[in-house]
């Protein structure tokens, strides 16, 4: 068990370094507006954006395609622009693939991918106004949400 975990950790770190090395110049391509804000942080918690790792701090703004990553002692909570609340427990990884909240255009979409760890989720306005546009994915299943609070644990690879 311990061995496997160490090997996994090593592979994960190697992947992160590799991604960092190839995408160093692609940063700042994303000029769109922020979609969420970090509101609570405890222990080690980071945001991975286009290969860059940013320490999560209260007030940090998030963008589409950001990944949220917590360490062994870490947890973090975020508030999306539509008041969806989401938090991660320790050793968790989650990707915000898509988030659109544009009531004036009638456009709503939220697509979240849980890779591993624990998550708590309380749906916001998007799920109230357009429940079919909420997509929550885990490695084994997709979760359809009709306005609710739930928690999920994903063991991942």
């Amino acid at each position, binding site marked *: *068990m311990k061995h496997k975990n160490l090997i996994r950790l090593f592979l994960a770190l190697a992947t992160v370094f590799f991604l960092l090395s190839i995408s160093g110049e692609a940063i700042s391509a994303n000029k769109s507006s922020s979609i969420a804000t970090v509101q609570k942080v*405890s222990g080690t918690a980071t945001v991975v954006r286009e290969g860059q790792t940013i320490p999560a701090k209260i007030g940090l703004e998030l963008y589409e395609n950001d990944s949220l990553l917590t360490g062994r002692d870490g947890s973090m909570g975020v508030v999306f622009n539509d008041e969806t609340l989401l*938090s991660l427990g320790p050793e968790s990884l989650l990707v915000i693939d898509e988030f659109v909240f544009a009531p004036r255009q009638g456009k709503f979409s939220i697509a979240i991918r849980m890779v591993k760890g624990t998550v*708590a989720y309380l749906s916001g306005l998007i799920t109230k*106004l357009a429940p079919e546009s909420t997509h929550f994915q885990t490695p*084994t299943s997709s*979760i359809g949400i*009709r306005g609710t609070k739930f*928690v999920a644990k994903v063991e991942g690879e």
Partner: protein
Amino acid sequence: MSPWRNILFLWIFLCLLSGCGAHRAKRDLIVLLPDPDGKAGAITVTTGGGSQSLDKPGYAIVVEDPNQAPSTSQPMDQKEITDVFGPALSTLPDPASRFILIILYFERDTIKLTHESKDLLAEILRTVKRRQSHEVYVVGHTDLVGKEAYNNELSQKRANYVRDLLVSRGIKPNTLFVSYYGKARPLVPTRDEVPEPRNRRVEVIVR
């Protein structure tokens, strides 16, 4: 010392080393919790093998294999929920004051508010003022009696009626967002053609 004992020790040692017995398949656990207002919504868990719904708070679904249907829902005790999800739950931001939902009910087949719901208009106006809201959502619905097209139109009329009412009381039109869903989203799920007063409604969400 018997040779069997040595074999046993060796076996235990190898187990510790390799983690035998530990099932390393991907496994998901999903638990529905009560909403902050005490009610529970519903979620549906879908894998390559099928779907399972959860609509009771404190109940859980387990997915062992992405190619098989999720488990049927089982109750999970509070202590276990706290053990597994404690850190995530304690970092979930405070849900209080996100938005206020006020539901207005209508008489059957009309855009006439029920007597009780007329009194709620003042509360909506107060809420908008107190929160200095620039976002008020007005969402029309019907019960399941009648055809889809008819109900879509009825729910639209109900929503527009409430919008006009709010505008006439001084709410700025550009802060109001109207949508309607006919019979597609009952508050109280019923079979088709079942009259249900609680589904004849306009939901007003004040942010």
